[in-house]
């Protein structure tokens, strides 16, 4: 290589190193504060929350209600939602049953979403002992929405605002799906069990 070519290569390399990377805003989620005593020996939630605070976000859907009651609170209730007819959620070790509804047919459960979500995205309501213990948003990308990350973050941020003594919000990925869930803290033995779609869970 001629000296001129070498200098040009080095200059290009240097510039590519120094070129400013595209700036990107990182979202920082917030949760309700904790209150500690002066010696910082014990901490507790600084604010108190009740199931009605969760109901205000979900259109009246709160943990502990029956499949029939959940269905009745949806904008377009499905016919014949009864415990005995519900399919089993086999990812759980105990008798957990569910029904689902399309996300685009929701009202309160999609009201915070600003980012796009695929047309096939849906919401699953999971029950144990005839009582709702988890709501799971499953956001699937498609041709019109290549990434559902922003939509998942919108949902996650909304439910993180409720203290974990009332509702525990989680966010993870399963295959190419973004999953956001809220779980009843009283059903914490079911907390570790998560949806793992057939395309396999990926780390990032």
């Amino acid at each position, binding site marked *: 290589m001629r000296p001129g070519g070498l200098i040009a290569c080095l200059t290009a390399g240097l510039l590519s190193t120094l070129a400013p990377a595209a700036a*990107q805003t990182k979202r*920082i989620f917030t*949760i309700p504060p*904790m209150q500690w005593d002066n010696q910082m020996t014990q901490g507790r939630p600084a604010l108190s929350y009740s199931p009605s605070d969760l109901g205000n976000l979900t259109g009246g859907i709160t943990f502990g209600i029956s499949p029939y009651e959940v269905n009745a609170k949806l904008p377009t209730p499905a016919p014949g939602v009864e415990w005995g007819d519900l399919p089993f959620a086999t990812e759980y070790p105990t008798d957990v049953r569910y029904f689902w509804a399309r996300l685009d047919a929701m009202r309160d459960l999609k009201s915070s979403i600003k980012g796009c979500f695929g047309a096939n995205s849906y919401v699953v309501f999971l029950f144990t002992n005839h009582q709702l213990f988890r709501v799971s948003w499953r956001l699937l990308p498609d041709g019109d929405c290549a990434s559902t990350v922003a939509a998942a973050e919108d949902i996650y941020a909304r439910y993180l605002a409720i203290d*974990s003594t009332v509702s525990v919000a989680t966010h993870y990925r399963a295959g190419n799906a973004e999953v956001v869930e809220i779980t009843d803290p009283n059903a914490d033995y079911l907390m570790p069990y998560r949806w793992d779609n057939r395309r396999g869970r990926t780390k990032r």
Partner: protein
Amino acid sequence: MMARHMIAIRSGRVIARSVMALAVIARSVIALAAIALAVISAPAGAAPSSGDISGGLPPVVKDSTKAATCTVTYLVTNIVTNDTIAVRMQVTPDQNDSPVGNLMPCPPDIPPRVASRALDACIRRAGDPKDCVFADMARDFEKHPGINSTAENSSRCSSDKASDIGIACFLVDGLQVCSVGCGGSPQSAIAAAVRRCEAKQQQQCPITGSQSILAPR
């Protein structure tokens, strides 16, 4: 006859006075009854509500100069989802504490259990506890991702020293490697985080964000 006439006149005067007195009493009773009836039957809305009191809330409630409680805010991150959570720890002031610049002082030393509780906020929501770390990461974090490659004390800011906490990251193979900074504004907190990130990681750190240290009142 004359005497009898005088007695009759006196009796008439006495009766007339008595009748007048009774009329005055009756009028007073009617007026009092009317007032009582008006008070009892008045609609609730007509009574002065708290909003009708001129001057608004009592000064002790309205006091906007109340010093802000010490708040220590941590940034914790889930390295699988890259979600970062600001965990605010408010500290009850000591009786002898006095505010400086409208801010209550924070304890000089923060016990490790407080940091542990901050990390719990991530762990409770993560698929695996090992996914959760403090947001200020060591050099080569991407090669050794885990809690031992992060600094708890550099991942927090106190409200008596700064108003905002910032974060600056770069992306390597889908993982955000970050540093944390404190500042007197969102911009200065981000600038402090960028300086720390670029000095430590020898990388440009273009992914940035900030949060106020104090919880919204």
